[in-house]
């Protein structure tokens, strides 16, 4: 009851005119950076950081939080429309979202992404408001062995990401692991596979890699079709998801929300990881997994819900412990400090008004984003009506600037081109890039936590069995691998 009263107080502050305007501005800008590939919420927030000094602390922070949430909403747009991921958390949305768009269901895909995002973000906020304290204590219990086990679980989903050949999927995943190992060794800082190029010291960035593998490769592959692609006609009533879509997607949204909810709290987990894992889970649970990668709506609903839920709950460790669990919140942490407010256990005591105002503003921001994004859908779908000879050069432009704006470095454009060609050849040789990207994202976290665990235990693998959370995750991994084999065997007997 007290929490409700405080929330109402927070809402009242957030509803003041100037704060409302700031939320709106944040949401708009966030949607923009989400839609545009490359520059992400972390970049946008840090750009606005100096400008936000003129604002009162609460106003500044709710605007910056709006950017983060807006980016999570907007990220899926270019993934669905043109196969160019808007930011890292939307890479996996390319797989089915783009296929849906090619079948004339772009509206449904965009719509389910927006609604899924709204539901997930709201659930995440309720969690943030009610059980922030105990949740962050739980997250702290995650040490290197627990991370290792959970990431291993993530890896086992690669089996389900494979559309056709398991061997080829494994080859792709191992290539992803090796690409992820490029850069300075995470423990000893020794250069690995860098060929003396200093821009490789911090490893490859996932965004230029994904823009190349998905976006540019798609264009290169489409160019050679001599027959002009038939123009996709979209009728207005197809702009929004229909009842059938809802029925298919509802469990995906719920599961995606739950996965995002918990992964978001974990330091280092966050939106990117949860989007991949929720996609894998959906494919695992689907009755016809072969639909995935060919335009399954669950493949859009689950990751988009997961990344928004994760975005909301990632505020929990920041606000309760003073620990930013991902890059975006690290920048936001800086923003808090610059305004003389220290996020952490004392925040609720010292600045209750600000704490509740942030939560209130996020509720409002979510509603604004829902209302703002729905009318945008028909507008976005129009993009697909542009003749492709005009569209392609523009998409290439988007790919180029997107890659550049990650580190403001031309080097990333080269990386994008190289992986564009690589992705194009992969198609020709009948390989799928999805396991590569998943392994690339998980690989470095997997390695560093394995090595840290072994350092902690002085080389004994017992550390993974002694700790309950780690053990539980390992048992799950075992089941994920063993069950399909068991099924296959029993089927054969029949």
């Amino acid at each position: 009851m007290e929490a409700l009263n405080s929330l109402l107080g927070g809402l009242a502050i957030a509803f003041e005119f100037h704060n409302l305007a700031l939320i709106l501005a944040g949401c708009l800008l966030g949607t923009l950076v989400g839609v545009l590939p490359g520059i992400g919420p972390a970049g946008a927030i840090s750009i606005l950081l100096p400008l936000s000094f003129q604002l009162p602390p609460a106003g500044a922070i709710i605007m910056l939080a709006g950017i983060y949430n807006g980016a999570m909403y907007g990220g899926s747009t270019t993934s669905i429309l043109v196969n160019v991921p808007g930011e890292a958390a939307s890479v996996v949305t390319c797989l089915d979202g783009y296929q849906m768009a090619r079948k004339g269901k772009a509206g449904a895909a965009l719509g389910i992404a927006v609604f899924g995002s709204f539901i997930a973000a709201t659930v995440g906020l309720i969690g943030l408001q009610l059980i922030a304290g105990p949740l962050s204590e739980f997250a702290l219990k995650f040490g290197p062995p627990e991370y290792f086990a959970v990431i291993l679980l993530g890896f086992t989903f690669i089996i389900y990401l494979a559309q056709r050949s398991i061997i080829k999927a494994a080859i792709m995943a191992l290539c992803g692991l090796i690409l992820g190992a490029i850069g300075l060794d995470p423990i000893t800082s020794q250069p690995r596979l860098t060929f003396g190029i200093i821009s490789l010291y911090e490893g490859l960035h996932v965004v230029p890699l994904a823009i190349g593998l998905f976006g540019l490769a798609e264009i290169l592959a489409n160019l050679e079709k001599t027959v002009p692609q038939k123009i996709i006609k979209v009728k207005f009533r197809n702009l929004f998801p229909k009842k059938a879509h809802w029925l298919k997607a509802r469990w995906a949204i719920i599961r995606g929300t739950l996965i995002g909810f918990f992964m978001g709290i974990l330091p280092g987990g966050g939106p990117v990881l949860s989007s991949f894992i929720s996609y894998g889970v959906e494919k695992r649970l689907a009755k016809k997994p072969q639909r995935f990668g060919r335009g399954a709506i669950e493949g859009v609903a689950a990751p988009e819900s997961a990344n928004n839920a994760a975005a909301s709950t990632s505020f929990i460790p920041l606000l309760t412990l003073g620990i930013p669990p991902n890059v975006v919140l690290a920048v936001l942490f800086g923003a808090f400090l610059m305004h003389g407010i220290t996020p952490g256990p004392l925040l609720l005591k010292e600045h209750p008004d600000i704490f509740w105002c942030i939560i209130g503003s996020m509720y409002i921001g979510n509603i604004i984003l829902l209302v703002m994004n729905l009318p945008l859908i028909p507008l976005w779908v129009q993009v697909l009506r542009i003749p492709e000879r005009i569209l392609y050069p523009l998409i290439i432009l988007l790919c180029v600037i997107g890659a550049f704006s990650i580190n403001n470095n031309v080097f990333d454009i080269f990386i994008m081109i190289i992986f564009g060609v690589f992705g194009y050849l992969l198609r020709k040789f009948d390989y799928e890039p999805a396991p590569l990207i998943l392994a690339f994202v998980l690989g470095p976290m997997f390695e560093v936590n394995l090595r840290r665990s072994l350092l902690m235990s002085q080389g004994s693998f017992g550390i993974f069995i002694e700790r309950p959370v780690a053990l539980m995750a390992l048992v799950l991994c075992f089941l994920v691998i063993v069950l399909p084999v068991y099924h296959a065997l029993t089927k054969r007997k029949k």
Partner: protein
Amino acid sequence: MNRLDIISGVIFLALAFLVLMHAFTLGLGKLAQPQPGFFPFWAAFFLIIFCLSLISENITGKKNKSETSFFLREIIPRKSFLIVLSLLVYALLLPRLGYLPATFFLLLFLFMTARIKIWGALIKSLLAVILSYILFQYLLKTPLPQTLGIL
């Protein structure tokens, strides 16, 4: 038997061996203190195993997939090749010429390869380059490479 699979398998196999060699030079370490080479070593090791099984699966020909004809010119059609080339040239010119002229020429070239008439291509390129410049340089404050230190 699928020749494309054999070719790609051999290419990945060669890459895996290179990584394996590199891993040894980095040092594998021991279990209590794995060294930088530890992880790439195992990744390359498994990559070799999977490549070998892909190759052997295709050579023994248990699965008789449809033969995909392969010729370099089918794999790399001229247009895609031109576009990749133009992008490489663009990335080289960008820091020297600056964003506005370099991107203008890139777009002009891309529109021309898409068989858009010269005037239309000129106008579209100009529009796209200026709009994108305003969006990224001013609104999003991305420091795009400048021309002559002004724009």
